[in-house]
Structures are given as structure tokens and as C-alpha cells.
């Protein structure tokens, strides 16, 4: 494994950070009264991206010993990594500015926020392109992988933001119903994308088939089925689905509407779901790096 846990954590954090930024921007527009979701999203976004970048620097040993070399990262426009460096730089600057303004309780420059939104999307998709363009690893070299990474980035971004918001204010999570609906849709989409990717990729060539069988039945199968499929996807889908279903039932009666609006129901299920989604997001990236089987050249 050339790229291991550290890079998996970086890919995860970059996606999570971009997703949290987009969640906060969405929430700021859709729910101006539920400030906590917006604030949490805006604050965790640059922090998580910063941690991700530190991990990246730690993994790049030669650069760690000669930090000025990192400036060369901006030079090769043929490299997806160089393009990504620009994306992340712009995203990080916008996210840091917005977090700072949020802390100072000042008005946020709308243009910078839109720039942030564009580069948050770019950052999320870049993490997929980074490994997606590697022809030497057929498991990664698929058009669906960057899409899967974006969906996972948004889903973990929502999870991270909601988890933080729930810890700050128990009520707030019951007021942002559309975010929960989007989240459920993303999780179901992720299952579909994962299934499609494995089904199609496993028929590409021998290396790809080996990668897929490593995940489904081989050395990573326990991690895949329990960690990613059950904990990371099915558990959150079931809990979130049941929650949305009960909201629907609640809003059919007057008393129920008050309960829902008051947000008196607990946050246990939210904490559980969102933590599970975050775990799943990391496991997804770790497994895709771990199960990489290079093409056969002999």
C-alpha cells in the first residue's frame, strides 16, 4: 500500500470539510433561524481541511524535511494534484475567511461565499479525480468513483455538521428537516453507486476483479460489510428513514406538530447516525486505497 491510512484520512477530511461548508451555506439560506447548523458547519470546515492538509504534509516526507519544496506543487498543470492544490487553496482561504467573520459576528462578503461554494464542490470532486485518473489501478480508474466521492463528501459533511450542531443545541436538529431528507437521499445514492461501481468494475480486467473480491469476500470483507455497508450505510439509512417517517406521523396531529416543532425528542439517534456516517466515510476511502491492485504487466 503506497498510499495508506494517512492519505485515506486526508481524502476523508477534505470531503468532509467541503461537505460541511456546503451544508452550512445551504442551511444559511434555507433555515436563517437555525443559526447553529450554519455556525457549526462554517467553523468545522476550515479546521478539518487544515487537519487534512497537515496529514498530507506529514505523509510527504521529502517535503516535510524541506518545506519550501511545497511551493513547486503549483507548477505542473498536467497533474491533478497541482489542480487540486489550487482548488484547496482557494477553498481554504474562503472557508477560513467565512469562519473568521462568523466568529467576529460580521457580515459575510457574498462573493467570497459563492467562490467558497464553487471551490468546495471542486475540492470534493478533486479527491475522486486524484485517484480516478490513475490508470495503473483499475479499481480507481472508473468514471463513477469521483461521483461516489462527491456524494460521500456531501453525506459526511452533513453528518459532521449535524453532529456538531446536535451537541451545541438539541433542538436544532429537529428544525432542519430538508437536510435530513437530502442526507437520506445521498446515503441511498451511495449504496447504488457502490453497487454499480463494483458490478461494472469487477468485469473490467483481472486486477479490478481481484480488488473487488478483496473487498467483498477477501481480506477486507469484514471491514467492508460490517464497517462500510452495515454501520456506514444501512444503519444510518434505517434510523434516518424511521425518523423521517415518524416526523411525518407526528405532523399529522396537532400535538405531534408541537412535539416536532419543540424538538423535545432526543438526540441519541442523531448522534448515532451521524457518527456511523462519518465512520463509513473514512472506511470507504481506506478500503478503496487498501484494495488497490495494480495492473498486471508481466
Amino acid at each position, binding site marked *: 500500500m503506497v498510499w495508506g491510512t494517512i492519505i485515506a484520512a486526508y481524502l476523508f477530511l477534505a470531503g468532509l470539510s467541503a461537505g460541511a461548508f456546503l451544508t452550512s451555506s445551504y442551511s444559511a439560506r434555507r433555515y436563517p433561524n437555525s443559526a447553529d447548523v450554519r455556525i457549526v458547519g462554517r467553523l468545522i470546515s476550515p479546521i478539518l481541511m487544515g487537519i487534512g492538509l497537515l496529514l*498530507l504534509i506529514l505523509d*510527504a516526507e*521529502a*517535503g516535510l524535511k524541506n518545506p519550501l519544496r511545497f511551493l513547486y*506543487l503549483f507548477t505542473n498543470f498536467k497533474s491533478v*494534484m497541482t489542480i487540486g492544490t489550487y482548488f484547496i487553496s482557494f477553498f481554504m482561504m474562503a472557508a477560513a475567511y467565512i469562519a473568521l467573520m462568523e466568529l467576529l459576528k460580521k457580515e459575510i462578503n457574498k462573493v467570497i461565499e459563492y467562490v467558497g461554494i464553487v471551490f468546495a464542490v471542486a475540492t470534493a470532486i478533486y479527491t475522486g479525480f486524484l485517484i480516478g485518473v490513475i490508470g495503473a489501478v483499475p479499481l480507481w480508474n472508473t468514471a463513477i468513483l469521483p461521483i461516489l466521492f462527491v456524494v460521500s463528501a456531501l453525506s459526511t459533511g452533513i453528518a459532521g455538521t449535524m453532529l456538531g450542531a446536535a451537541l451545541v443545541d438539541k433542538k436544532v436538529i429537529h428544525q432542519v428537516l430538508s437536510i435530513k431528507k437530502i442526507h437520506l437521499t445521498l446515503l441511498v445514492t451511495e449504496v447504488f453507486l457502490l453497487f454499480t461501481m463494483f458490478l461494472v468494475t469487477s468485469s473490467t480486467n483481472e486486477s479490478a476483479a481481484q480488488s473487488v473480491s478483496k473487498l467483498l469476500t477477501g481480506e477486507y470483507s469484514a471491514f467492508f460489510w460490517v464497517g462500510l455497508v452495515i454501520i456506514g450505510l444501512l444503519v444510518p439509512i434505517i434510523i434516518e428513514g424511521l425518523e423521517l417517517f415518524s416526523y411525518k406521523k407526528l405532523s399529522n396531529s396537532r400535538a405531534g406538530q408541537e412535539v416536532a416543532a419543540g424538538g423535545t425528542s432526543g438526540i441519541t439517534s442523531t448522534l448515532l447516525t451521524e457518527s456511523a456516517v462519518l465512520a463509513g466515510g473514512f472506511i470507504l476511502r481506506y478500503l478503496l486505497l487498501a484494495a488497490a491492485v*495494480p495492473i498486471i*504487466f*508481466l
Partner: protein
Amino acid sequence: MARYGMMIDTRKCVGCYACRVSCQMQNELPVEESFIKFYEKETGIFPNVKNEIIPVQCQHCEDAPCVSVCPTKATYTTAEGIVLVDSEKCIGCKYCMVACDYGARTQNHETGVVEKCRFCSELVAEGKQPACVTTCISNARIFGDLDDPNSEVSRAIVRLNAQPLRPDLGKAKIYYVR
């Protein structure tokens, strides 16, 4: 301008590792690091079986994926077609290691820089042959100018119908007789 390449006749290779050792000495590599890897491939059905020993190093691809993915331009191709790493520019991100079709790159654990076969460019500049070629006990390796139809390597490639390991993957410049 020359366009350097190599031919390796795997039928002559006995797997003695002399090329690997001389390469390590020429490049002053630590014992655990080497630019030449040995693979074995069994083919055929018993009793008609064959075991090939295939030494693999950087193939100096003309359209090298390592050159295009390297974010710092540390990896580059010289005018003579040799793919080199500028150790002063490499940050050790290992993107090239992931992208190399032949798993030909290693990371130096002291400096963190990613390294690989350099076709002994300093020897070649002096008109000499790479260390692996001069050391080979069975003359399995021939090095030279692929653009010169009369060079020893070009003629051997034609005569023995040598092919890159995976001609479909890109324009590798090491030709193998299998």
C-alpha cells in the same frame, strides 16, 4: 539527439541479481532499496512448462504517467528520453509511485525522495554503458540509441522481435525477449 532504450533477453537471464547489486552500488543505495525488481512467471501446461525470470526497472516511457502526475515537476524527461527525478524538487507525495504501471519506483527512507532507475545518465553522458548492462554475466542486456537503426540495440530488437512488457500501456523504452 539520441533516444536511449534497452533490450533485455529474458531467455539469457539466470536471475543472479548481479545487475541489481551493481545498480545499488552505482547509485549508492541502501541494501533494502533497489531499482531493479525480479519477477518470475510460469507459463504452459505440464509437462510443457517454462519459468521466465523478468528483471523490471523504470521503462523510461515516452508518455510516462509519472511525469504527468508529478505535481512539482520533479520528475521530467531529458532530451535523450531518460526519465529522471530532481531530488531537490521531490516532496515525496508518492503520486508517481501510485501512477507507475510497472511499480518501478521506490522511496528513499532517509530523504523521503522517490527514486528509480536513471539509465545511469552520468555514465551514459561519458559515453559509457549503464552499470546493469556492463555487469550482466550473460549479456542479457543491450543499451543504446533506439533512433539509430544501426545501433546494436535497435538491430537486436528487430532480429529477436523484442517487445515492451505491455505495448498497450504506453511507449515503454525497454524491450523484452520472452
